[in-house]
């Protein structure tokens, strides 16, 4: 793998799995169709051919079974990376993730570790049918014992997955499926940022725009348009949703005085609410405007012909930026 190559996020994840499996024989890939097919998004393409059926395991079509057996494998000393085929399919496994995976280390008073990584392609914008476009990150972030991350570019996709696999905690790794085929630079040489560090991807001085995963590109597009209108927007790629690097967000807001949070998931009880509350507490005297949020509605994810209305796009985010700047 060449350094500084431009590569899709899907291929970066594939390279990351490959690197993890080469580095540690205990790393396993498991899920529905991950073997010969290479996954429905081809993210695991070629892994079974190179690592064998014993390490790239095609599972029965049973999500609770995938996560429950991954827990058992982890208890035996393996590091399973389980793929849930689509976001909306994770709910049959929700019980295993929440009641078992998240709590086992604490219940055992630290005596056992369950380093299970769950990869979930998530979010909308691909014209899919029902249950294929959900953004359930807040449902998991609310549960202690889990870590939640979502990369937005190829280098992060590559490094964050390896960091998640190498760590001893359960991690849910949300993959921005509508960005799978976006190409960006993959740097396999530089020392990566820590897994839970937020990153300023575009500096600015008038307003802070926070996003993660698929929304980072929207945020950057917004910043470009806003710049043409003479407004300086700073973009923060959160990268991690549990924990959240509030220090980075705080420094940015102390500089800009304004914050807009963007995510695809419904705004109500979403990660934006958490960020707004914490930043209000930390930056009350720096804020020039209330923290605003842009996200999905409190309605079922709509049929795909309506998803452009539901998902935060350039115009809705710009509108929030304008509202924040108007205070």
């Amino acid at each position, binding site marked *: 793998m060449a350094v500084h190559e431009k590569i899709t996020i899907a291929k970066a994840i594939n390279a990351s799995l490959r690197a993890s499996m080469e580095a540690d024989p205990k790393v396993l890939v498991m899920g529905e169709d991950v073997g010969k097919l290479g996954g429905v998004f081809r993210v695991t393409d070629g892994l079974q051919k190179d690592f064998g059926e014993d390490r790239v395991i095609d599972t029965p079509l049973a999500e609770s079974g995938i996560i429950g057996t991954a827990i058992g494998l982890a208890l*035996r000393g393996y590091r399973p990376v389980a793929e849930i085929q689509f976001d909306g399919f994770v709910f049959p496994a929700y019980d295993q993730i929440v009641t078992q995976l998240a709590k086992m280390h604490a219940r055992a008073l630290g005596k056992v*570790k369950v380093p299970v990584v769950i990869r979930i392609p998530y979010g909308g914008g691909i014209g899919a049918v029902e249950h294929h476009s959900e953004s359930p990150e807040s449902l998991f972030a609310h549960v202690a014992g889990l870590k939640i991350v979502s990369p937005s570019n190829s280098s992060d996709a590559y490094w964050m997955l390896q960091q998640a696999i190498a760590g001893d905690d359960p991690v849910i790794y949300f993959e921005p499926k509508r960005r799978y085929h976006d190409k960006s630079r993959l740097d396999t040489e530089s020392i990566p940022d820590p897994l839970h560090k937020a990153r300023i991807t575009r500096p600015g001085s008038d307003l802070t725009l926070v996003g993660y995963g698929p929304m980072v590109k929207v945020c950057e597009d917004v910043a470009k348009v806003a710049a043409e209108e003479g407004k300086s927007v700073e973009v923060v790629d959160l990268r991690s949703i549990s924990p959240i690097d509030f220090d980075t967000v705080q420094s940015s807001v102390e500089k800009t005085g304004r914050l807009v949070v963007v995510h695809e998931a419904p705004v109500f009880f979403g990660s934006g609410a958490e960020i707004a509350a914490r930043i209000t507490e930390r930056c009350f005297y720096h804020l020039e405007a209330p923290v605003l949020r842009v996200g999905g509605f409190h309605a079922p994810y709509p049929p795909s012909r309506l998803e452009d209305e539901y998902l935060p796009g350039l115009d809705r985010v710009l509108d929030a930026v304008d509202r924040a700047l108007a205070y």
Partner: protein
Amino acid sequence: MTVEGTAERKTARGGSKRTTAKKATPTKKATQSGTRNSAQPDEAEQDQLVQLLTPEGKRVEHPDYAIDLSPEELRGLYRDMVLTRRFDAEATTLQRQGELGLWASLLGQEAAQIGSGRALRDDDYVFPTYREHGVAWCRGVDPTNLLGMFRGVNNGGWDPNSNNFHLYTIVIGSQTLHATGYAMGVQKDGADSAVIAYFGDGASSQGDVAESFTFSAVYNAPVVFFCQNNQWAISEPTEKQTRVPLYQRARGFGFPGVRVDGNDVLACLAVTKAALDRARTGQGPMLVEAFTYRMGAHTTSDDPTRYRADEERLAWEAKDPILRLRKYLEAEGFVDDAYLAAIDEESETLGKRVRDAVRAMPDPDHMAIFENAYADGHALVDEERAQFAAYQASFADAEAAAEGN
């Protein structure tokens, strides 16, 4: 349940010797209503019940499950069952005295647990529910460790790897998948140990149990599913869980199931040993249904008098697992009064030890809330820990100031 309804249900069973008067025409009403008899062993199924020691304490043979134990080994099983029952009784008493928040008694299930537990090798791994006190005993887990979560001082209480005995699992059936995954790992390691998952008749309705059957069969995982069918899932009888005898379910998943007399410690030992050996030698999973009875309440919060008749319990008391082994040991001359008295004395010593240990259990430090939430740490936990520590310290400061005045 009306008399008419009962007649209808008997009719619906069809082919039974008792239903010759009316033509068997299963009605919707009949199929939907619960029939106490459907999951009970009828005469044909009774033949399938593996038994090596009758309720009267008579040794019988089974063509597939022979066992030959020395008098010392037989006495050991007796001791295990008596001490386990004594420990269980003490825990129940401690709950009544307010020392434990809850207790799930195993009364009546000693043979199922000691029989299966003594079939295990040290390198086998156990995934229990929350009632496997007898299995824990066999694994060498200190019984006082089992009481921490019931007292409310922890949510687990022991290192699963020190005795290859996983933590108690409250959500029913979840652990069958952990056992299956663990067994898949054992297989990948090329080890010849086996894994055993305990669950109850109620848990058999859970999707996780069905999924664990599927996964274990597909991967030929070395796991034994040990279902203690104690007839009641809190207030729900087995026929609210299944329309076929539970052991027969295994066949549909592609592995064998066997029903064993769960009050017969010898049969439980022999059948579990055979199932474990089978798993160890690469022949895949097996389901053992131990047909037994929960003589007490589901937990100390439950009131079984609201949903089941005394006669049922009395009928099962006649099949008491400890009593039948004692009759056999006495008839063979393997025990004498002095031995039995010594076991009773050991029981009392155990009871006292458990009582003292529970009362001496300190409440955990308040900062324990944050301990082990994560293996590698988490910024939010660190922040909340620091805030809570400062909050707690403020009381100490206030007290110091008050004392200073």
